[in-house]
Each structure stands twice: as structure tokens, then as C-alpha cells.
């Protein structure tokens, strides 16, 4: 455990070493918000207020959580390029400590960013109204677990597929975001597309989050009853994390054997 904490500290120091990294983490959601606002403005010239403002904030928070996953494969590639990944694996710490370090640091910074943008959206687009903040927060934690699991999974893939895996780790979250109704409700997806959503477990978590956000009495879900959605989310989050760690460790073994830990 202390080794993992040491890795988190190390990643924190590296993160703070580059001011551009902090700037990027703060500014990136602003661009997303602006693109959302101006695109929305093109179709509905009326000002964005109330309901849309709340959805914009919740969508952005989920988007940010999911997008931190791609940080882990990026770090793996950096270590591969520097030729230090093999050395890290020789240290007496768990093999996924580097990834946990990166994801934890990014997660902590993301919380600060989300709170900052909560304020920005309130001021810019009108008051957001989250009906059940604690429930929303708990469900967001499940999204965090899924994002960590995805980060670990893609890091394992990166060990052998390298550049392709890096692009995939950026690309796949976008697909998941579109199909799981993060910004655009599943009910408004083109006919047939909503069927795909039903096979993406995040859709159920997102649906439950929106229910807890907008519904005075939680339960106004669009896919299935909220209880099932929460159960599916919990089971999937745990299972996904377990499978990802196993996959990552198997990729580490494969990469150690074929020598691709150092190759790039």
C-alpha cells in the first residue's frame, strides 16, 4: 500500500511539474462547454437555462470522469519510450501501481475541476438544480470505478498494441459517451441506436444519474426501473474492474516475455 501511495505522490509531483497539464485539465471542459453552448445556440437561439444547464453540468462531470481513463495508457507509452517501464516492474510494488498513481492524481484534480465548473455553469447558464446530490455523487463513484477499470484495460492493451491502443483509448470513450446518453438522452438517439445503448452498462448508470438529478422522487428512469439499473451498475463496475486487472496482468506477462515492454 505504501508503495502505491509513493507512486501516487510521484505522479502528483510529475503532474504539478508541467503547468500546461494543469492548464489543460482546467481549460478542456471549458471548450467542451463552449462547443455545447454554441452548437445548442445554433438550433435554439433562446438562452440556455434550467434543465439544460443541469444536464450540461452532469454530462460534463460524467464525460470528465470517463476521459481520465485515457491518461493511463498515455503514461504507459511515456514510460515505454523512456525505457523505464521494465525498471518500474522490477520494483517491489504491484504492477498496476503506475496506472493507479496516474488515475488517482487525475481523479483528485478532476474533482476540483468539476466543482469549479459547477460554479461556472451556474453563473453563465443559469442555476443548476440537482434533486438528490448524494445519490448523484454515489452513482458518479460507480462511473469512476468503470473509468479506472477502462484505464487499466487499455493500459494492458497498450503494452502490446502501443499506438493503436492509445488512439483506441481516446476513441472508445466517445462512442460510449454517445451511446450511453451522457449528453443526448437515449430516447432521442436514432431508431435502432438505442438498442446498442442497452448493451452498454454505463447507459444504466447514466440513466440512474439523470433520474436522481432531475426527478423529485427518484425513479423516473427511461430504460428499466432504477433499482435494476443500480444493481447492474454495481455488478458491472466490480466485474469490469476484476477482468481489467486480470487482463492487464496477463498483458504484462506477455509483454515481458516477448520484450515489447521496451519497444516502441
Amino acid at each position, binding site marked *: 500500500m505504501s508503495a502505491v501511495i509513493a507512486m501516487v505522490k510521484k505522479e502528483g509531483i510529475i503532474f504539478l511539474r*508541467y*503547468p*500546461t*497539464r494543469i*492548464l*489543460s*485539465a482546467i*481549460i*478542456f471542459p471549458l*471548450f*467542451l462547454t*463552449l*462547443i*455545447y453552448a*454554441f*452548437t*445548442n*445556440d*445554433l*438550433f*435554439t*437561439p433562446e438562452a440556455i437555462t434550467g434543465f439544460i444547464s443541469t444536464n450540461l453540468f452532469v454530462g460534463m462531470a460524467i464525460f470528465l470522469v470517463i476521459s481520465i481513463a485515457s491518461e493511463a495508457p*498515455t503514461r504507459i507509452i*511515456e514510460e515505454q*519510450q*523512456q*525505457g523505464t517501464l521494465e525498471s518500474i516492474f522490477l520494483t517491489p510494488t504491484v504492477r498496476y501501481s503506475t496506472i493507479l498513481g496516474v488515475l488517482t492524481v487525475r481523479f483528485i484534480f478532476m474533482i476540483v475541476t468539476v466543482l469549479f465548473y459547477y460554479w461556472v455553469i451556474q453563473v453563465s447558464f443559469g442555476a443548476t438544480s440537482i434533486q438528490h446530490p448524494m445519490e448523484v455523487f454515489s452513482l458518479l463513484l460507480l462511473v469512476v470505478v468503470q473509468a479506472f477499470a477502462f484505464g487499466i484495460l487499455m493500459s494492458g492493451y497498450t503494452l502490446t*498494441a*502501443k*499506438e*493503436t*491502443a*492509445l*488512439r*483506441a483509448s*481516446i*476513441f472508445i470513450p*466517445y*462512442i460510449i459517451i*454517445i451511446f450511453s446518453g451522457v*449528453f*443526448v*438522452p437515449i430516447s*432521442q*438517439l436514432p431508431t435502432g441506436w438505442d438498442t446498442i445503448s442497452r448493451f452498454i452498462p454505463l447507459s444504466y448508470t447514466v440513466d440512474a444519474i439523470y433520474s436522481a438529478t432531475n426527478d423529485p422522487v427518484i425513479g423516473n428512469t427511461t430504460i428499466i426501473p432504477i433499482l435494476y439499473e443500480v444493481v447492474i451498475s454495481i455488478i458491472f463496475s466490480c466485474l469490469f474492474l476484476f477482468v481489467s486487472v486480470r487482463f492487464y496482468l496477463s498483458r504484462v506477462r506477455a509483454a515481458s516475455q516477448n520484450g515489447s515492454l521496451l519497444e*516502441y
Partner: protein
Amino acid sequence: MSMDVLDHKQYRSQFSFKSNMGIIWSVFIQRMTQIMRYKGALFFDIITPLLFAIFPIFIGVSAAGSIDNASSQFQKAVNSESASFVLYAILGANVFQIVNGALFNFGFFLRREQITGTLESLYLAPTNQVYVMYGTGLYAIVRAFINFVISLVLAAVLFQINPFTNPISVIYSLLFLLIGMLPLYGLAFGFGALVVKFKDMQSLQGVISNLIGVAMGIFFPITLLPTYIRFLSYILPPTWQNAGVRSILVGTDWILGNWYLDLAVLIAMSLFYPVIGSKIYSLTDRSIRKTQGLGVF
């Protein structure tokens, strides 16, 4: 001045035009060979603009209530009765991907050489580094064009739109893009200076490409932007590329009202952006080599 520096300059002056072109070609082939190893990365590059475009299309449908409402609202906003907002979004996403590619390919090249410790060695080669950078630029431009065309074909199939009704228009739009590539890569040279200076390529690229994305009107006309952002829009080459391609293929308005005026602005940018970009890069690079070394990260 030490003897080895003089020797180095002597070597450089021996390079003829043909050998300089050879350097550009070698770098181009080397980069192409390298990326061909990663077929998945090539695939994702083509598919990414389509994915970006889905986002505003859904926002549009969601905000307007239906695809018909969204279409008529969009046509009213851009002042064109036949404009397709799906094609509009796809073109915006494609130009954005070209900007991303320009910044990524330059930045990634420099940063990778820096991390692997070979950037300083590369500078010891008896050749002018500008030609190495031109080779990288050529590679990025060829990839951008291939991606643009394939992505349009895929969009035509997936979204049932036809950007190829007039093949001449497609050629015009590609020419417009090509002219815009010169100032864009001038900008990318300047970005290279930032990468060498601040190191963290990915974050820098994230900030700058998204800033350009908003300013160039990735999914919306720049007339919707506040005046102070619009000023930034006008000095960025992608804004003119984006508006030009859209005017030709979608039928929206030219920024200055006529194609030749927009083209004149792009040509003017082509004259000074590459010079300014190269100058900024050379100055930064020289100062870093004197103070800390290019291999430091």
C-alpha cells in the same frame, strides 16, 4: 567559433536542392513506414471526425426536437435554404481533425525524439533541420488529405449525404484546404517551439487544438461567437479553410462575401505564417540548446 561548428556548417552548405529534397522524402518515407506499423491508429484517424460530427448532430436534433426542425433552424441560421447541417458538421469535424493532425504530428515527433533522447543526436546530423521538419509536414499533409477524402466517402455512406454531387467542387475544396495547409503548418512550427519549451505535448495540443476548434467555428458559424473571440478566429488559418470548404460544398456564405477575397487572405497567411513559425521555432530551439539541452524532459 569552434572548428566542429564550422565543419558542420560546411557540410550543410554542400547539400544541393536535390539532396535537400531527398531529406524531405526520406523523413516522409520513414514516418509513413512507422505509422503503417499501427493499422489501428490509421483506422481511428479516419473514423474520429465522423464520431466528432455525431455529437453536434445529436445536440441539434435534441435541442430542436426533430431532425426536420433542426434542419430548418440551421438553414435559417446560416442563411441558406439547401444547406445540410450533417455535412456542415462533418466538414467542421474534418478540418478540426486536420488541425489536430498538424499539431499532433509535429508535437509528437519532437516530443518522442526528446523522450527517447534522440532529438539532440538528430541535430548533430549534417543537415538543415528545417528539411527534417518539412518531411514531417509533408507526411502530415498527405495523411490529412487521405483521411479527409476517405472520411467524406464514409460519411456519405453512413449519413446518406452526397458531398460529391459536383466533383469539381470537391477538387476546389481540396485545393482550398491545400493552400490553407501552408499557414497551418506555419502555426504547427510555432507549436513545435512550445513543445520544445514546455515539454508536455499532449496537454498543449489539447488546449491549443480545442481553442482553435472553438475559434474556427467547428460546428457553428463564427458569427455566433462574441466579438473578442471572433478577432482570434480571423487570424487563424483553419477558420478560413473551414469556411471555404463549407462554402464550396455546403453553400454557406464566404467570410468576406467572395471566394477570391477569402482565398487572398489564405494566400497572404501562407506568405508570413510559415516564416514566423519557422523563426519562432529556430529561436526557441537555439535558446533551449544553449541553456538546458534538447534532451531534457
